[in-house]
């Protein structure tokens, strides 16, 4: 019998704790598949964030380290600099990366750390119960913006891919989405390219993945995918923002 679908070697047998419909699981799987496909399981170190995916170290069958909230790029810097032969990636949510960890991500990118960052933008703080994130959409209701994000006081959502692509240090910066199978395939291609840049020692690589959080958005997974498409996509355009070849 031909096997057409199985657990990636780089994932453990642990069951994930994610809510039904959550895209964290999809993103984990893609990362694991790429680690398998590139044959780098034995030299990969993943850095876990603080957020819903804090337990990613239970799911990835590779060496893993945890980081304090937002600090994953600094922890990854520490690992990669002292063991440059390893493949080091961080996996971070939008609260983790774009709020408390803004300093760490910008400087890791600007130093051109040869690491890969997987950035899960679900426009909300998932783990702590759906508070407003720096990426929350204008007017989006959250538990700390009960009347909707008021841009007059909270500013506009931060577009991390655009922001990082303004840095003059060569890097690979791409935004993709997880709301349809087609987009998932595209996302995986972007991720593969990001890891390849790291393996070649070329540059810092950053993959933003637009994601859903049905639980805290208060709608079904199907409605969430639709909301992502209608509300987030126009503000967070997909595509490659920067490649190391750019002048």
């Amino acid at each position: 019998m031909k096997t057409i679908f199985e657990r990636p070697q780089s994932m453990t047998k642990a069951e994930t704790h994610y809510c039904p419909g959550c895209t964290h699981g999809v993103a984990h799987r893609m990362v694991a598949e790429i680690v398998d496909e590139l044959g780098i399981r034995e030299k990969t170190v993943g850095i876990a964030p603080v957020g819903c995916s804090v337990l990613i170290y239970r799911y990835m069958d590779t060496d893993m380290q945890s980081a304090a909230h937002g600090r994953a790029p600094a922890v990854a810097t520490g690992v990669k600099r002292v063991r440059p032969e390893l493949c080091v990636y961080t996996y971070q949510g939008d609260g983790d990366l774009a709020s408390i960890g803004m300093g760490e991500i910008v400087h890791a990118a600007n130093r051109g750390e040869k690491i890969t960052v997987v950035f899960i933008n679900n426009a909300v703080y998932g783990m702590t119960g759906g508070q407003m994130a720096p990426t929350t959409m204008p007017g989006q209701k959250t538990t700390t913006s009960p009347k909707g994000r008021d841009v007059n006081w909270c500013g506009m959502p931060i577009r991390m891919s655009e922001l990082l692509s303004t840095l003059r240090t060569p890097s690979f910066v791409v935004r993709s989405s997880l709301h349809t199978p087609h987009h998932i395939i595209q996302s995986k291609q972007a991720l593969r390219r990001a890891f390849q840049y790291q393996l070649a020692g070329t540059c810092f690589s950053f993959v933003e993945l637009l994601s859903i959080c049905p639980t805290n958005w208060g709608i079904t997974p199907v409605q969430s995918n639709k909301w992502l498409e209608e509300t987030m996509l126009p503000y967070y355009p997909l595509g490659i923002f920067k490649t190391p070849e750019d002048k």
Partner: protein
Amino acid sequence: MPKILMKGAEAIGEAAIRAGCLSYFGYPITPQSEVGEYMSRRLPEVGGVFVQAESEVAASQMIYGAAGAGVRVMTTTSSPGFSLMAEAMSYIAASELPAVVVNIVRGGPGLGGILPSQGDYFQAVKGGGHGDYRCLVLAPATVQEFVECVMKAFPLAEKYLNPVLLIGDGMIAQMMEPVDFDAVKTEPQRDVEAWATTGCKDRPRNVVECLWLDPKLCEDFNFELIEKYKKMTAEDCYFEEYELDDQPEMVVVAYGTTSRIVRTAIEELRKDGYKIGMLRPITLFPFPFARLRELSETSHVKAFSVVEMSQGQMLEDVRWAIRDKFPVGFFCRMGGIVPSPEEVIDFLKQEFVTRGLKGAVS
């Protein structure tokens, strides 16, 4: 090797390199920026890694990462920077990683000043970051001793899988003193394959983390930490006894820079016949509680004094050590002012009077 004259801050960096620490992450802050400057120049020469981080928050998280990857690593900072490292210190202790951190304490609170202080004692020995954890804390008093402590710090951190914190101040970091790097040999690094993230080749994966969703497991870990700290107390509590072997009436407790001044004061007072000596803690955690208590129970010791550049932080530990058997005299200067030998001598003479001791033989 002959002794060479070296500035404290640079000697700290060189000692780390000689101890096999080839990675340094730091952020500049007076009065210890020279450590980073030295490392930026020396580490590339020996194939090491120097990174100037964007903040102390990041520098300390970088050493968390590097320590997790199983290499000898160090960062150095001064008080305001150490506050920013509190988060990482807690994570490093909780993840049971070896790492060496130096805090060259300056006047505080707040931005404070840049001159010598001992105001970070509580922060150093009582935890500093969140949760129940301790660093093993070394407080050398000379540049030579700093070098030796840095060299010992790495094996100690590896023995206990725990951060080791060295504290000093601008006096030691900025002063030039003769040093002999061959006075101590560093033990080689222990095997890290059982826990470090070196890539899971031919072994099960290693995970460095510190989250316990089950409170029972978190409590169990806390009990393990208690055992670890007991072992430190039993095996690695260091102190120096100065002029304590001829039945002195008074024991002064001082560490680091203030111990040097107290030493001078005692030399002078002894010329006048005062029976006085000093216990100088070298480890502030574990603290020499047992030895102080023993001294308080001898028939000849009638008084204790503490000289400190803080409002009386170590004083609390000394009082606890002797269970307040005697009132403990206390003298301090703060905010960057180092006490002069004269004022310490005056204070100690006054203590002899206040406590009704014999003092000088007339």
